[in-house]
């Protein structure tokens, strides 16, 4: 089953590359549906039967490459499946517009390649394999970011790509250090190595820095807003909801399996948490002062990514295992609900821009009258981002706050509280413009049914995920290959 999640998108990408015209849309959509179905089935499978491990080519682990599928991977796969399907639906409509038609030719193969490689990074269990997959993701993501072809988007794409490549190089050198210490590349065998030593510490540093560059944590966030803000709407949705999650997933995996017992030190974890906290406040503040809709949403990503890094001080310093698991679940939950909500926001923003022909917040007045569905989508996704009950964002932030208080690291509580307030500020800023009535502006273009509904569905999912927290917690605490307290399940 997990193989299909890689095979189907890659096959689709090749077919989309070979065939012209409308066949491409049909193939792309078909592959999207198939991949979505496969990811749902896989999630159910893992939920019931527990984690599985595949040895590719039938070779045992230190020699061959493994693939491991556990609760953590399937949650990301599930997120990718939903966002991928709805974004694909949206893009069929989006790229069929006259001025976008030539872009579809490039969009489909790259997007399906990106989807396939995202799926394979969620199965990764070999650190060198992770490097190759990350390069696959960076190149396709940078190419997609340059899709619109404007000066700003080209420069943003190149800046992102250079940073991502530098991150990959640091990661690769980290792989070298790990190999020098242990002589193996498999993550779980690496985790079984008990002696830490300076080589492991250096590897941890290099890999962590390389990955947080790609995840856009605070001091390295500068590439994100232009790259995500300048791309076409479906691309922005994918980049924000999924691509940065790919490198975050790898970071989680590496910290929890490879370094947990040996090298992960409280100081490093605190530093990451501090950067996350700064990111939450800085990103949200920047989002408030922006004037362009997509830039607001892009800066909001910087802020929301900050939350994810609170996980490190909470999990690696807290003593009580129950609260550790709570914090761990909260952060993964936040990843998922942010992914869904952010994709919904970007798609809705794409609708607005399409309808009004402008990106400026001020000239988008009165949209609530004309595009009620899109406004509703914005509001719903905003609710999840702010963390109002009963959304997924609420569950995540509530658990986060609880575990922060339980862990005694009070200063971290600033993130969910201040961050929530600031998020509310920029969401209401968007919405308040939406309800201002202005008779002078009379527009506007027609937004197709599919485009409105796919954005809305994403927003609804981001709320609904809040009702399914039990299953998510079960997947994250029972059905994973590693346990949070330390050690590996044999």
């Amino acid at each position, binding site marked *: 089953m997990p193989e299909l999640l890689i095979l189907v998108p890659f096959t689709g990408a090749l077919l989309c590359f070979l065939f012209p015209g409308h066949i491409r849309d049909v193939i792309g959509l078909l592959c999207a549906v198939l991949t979505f179905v496969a990811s749902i089935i896989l999630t159910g499978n893992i939920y019931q039967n527990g984690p599985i491990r595949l040895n590719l080519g039938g070779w045992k682990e230190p020699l061959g490459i493994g693939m491991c599928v556990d609760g953590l991977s399937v949650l990301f796969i599930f997120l990718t499946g939903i966002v991928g399907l709805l974004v694909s639906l949206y893009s069929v409509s989006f790229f069929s517009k006259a001025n976008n038609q030539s872009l579809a030719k490039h969009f489909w193969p790259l997007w399906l390649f990106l989807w396939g490689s995202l799926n394979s990074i969620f199965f990764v269990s070999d650190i*060198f394999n992770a*490097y*190759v997959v990350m*390069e696959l993701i*960076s*190149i396709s993501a*940078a*190419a997609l970011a*340059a899709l619109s072809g*404007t*000066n*700003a988007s*080209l*420069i943003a*794409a*190149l*800046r992102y*790509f*250079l940073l991502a*490549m*530098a991150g990959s*190089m640091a990661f*690769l*050198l980290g*792989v*070298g250090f790990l*190999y*020098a210490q242990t002589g193996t*590349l498999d993550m779980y065998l690496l985790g079984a190595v008990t002696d830490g030593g300076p080589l492991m510490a250096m590897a941890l540093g290099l890999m962590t820095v390389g990955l947080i560059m790609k995840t856009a944590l605070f001091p390295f966030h500068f590439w994100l807003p*232009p790259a995500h803000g300048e791309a076409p709407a479906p691309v922005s949705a994918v980049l924000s909801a999924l691509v940065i999650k790919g490198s975050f997933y790898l970071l989680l995996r590496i910290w929890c399996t490879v370094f947990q017992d040996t090298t992960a030190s409280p100081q490093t974890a605190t530093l990451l948490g501090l950067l996350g906290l700064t990111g939450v406040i800085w990103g949200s503040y920047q989002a408030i002062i922006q004037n362009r809709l997509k830039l607001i949403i892009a800066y909001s990503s910087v802020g929301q990514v900050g939350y994810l890094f609170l996980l490190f001080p909470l999990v690696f310093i807290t003593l009580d295992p129950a609260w550790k698991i709570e914090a761990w679940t909260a952060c993964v939950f936040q990843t998922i609900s942010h992914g869904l909500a952010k994709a919904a926001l970007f798609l809705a923003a794409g609708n607005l821009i399409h309808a009004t022909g402008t990106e400026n917040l001020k000239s988008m007045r009165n949209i609530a009258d004309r595009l009620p569905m899109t406004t509703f989508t914005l509001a719903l996704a905003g609710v999840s981002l702010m963390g109002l009950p009963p959304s997924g964002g609420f569950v995540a932030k509530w658990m986060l706050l609880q575990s922060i208080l339980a862990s005694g690291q009070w200063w971290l509580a600033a993130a969910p509280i201040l961050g929530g307030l600031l998020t509310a500020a920029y969401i209401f800023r968007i919405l308040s413009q939406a309800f201002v009535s202005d008779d002078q502006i009379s527009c506007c273009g027609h937004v197709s049914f599919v485009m409105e509904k796919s954005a809305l569905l994403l927003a609804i999912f981001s709320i609904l995920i809040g009702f399914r927290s039990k299953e998510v917690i079960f997947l994250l605490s029972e059905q994973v290959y590693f346990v949070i307290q330390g050690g590996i399940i044999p």
Partner: protein
Amino acid sequence: MTTLLIYAFTSIILFSIGLFGLVSHPNLIRKIVSLNIMGGGAFLFLISLAYHGRSPDIDPVPQAMVLTGIVVTISATAFALCLTRRIREKTGQCLLEHCPDKPET
């Protein structure tokens, strides 16, 4: 042992020089060249490990990794250079500074 040390030190130096070039040069082509130096450093480290292994033959796994890495790096370099040329074509300079778009028609 000492061959390992010489090459491992060299690889570290190359990596750091590449990093320095990447952050210090404003010109895009130079940045890309610096990235390639970084990559060369990382590859050299892996191969010096392969040479160091105890078995009589060279460890083939790092060799295979570096071969893969070389192809990946050249693809990434070609893609980055293509973006650079496009930027050069549109803005007239090879820098990452933001340049406002011409009004689109």
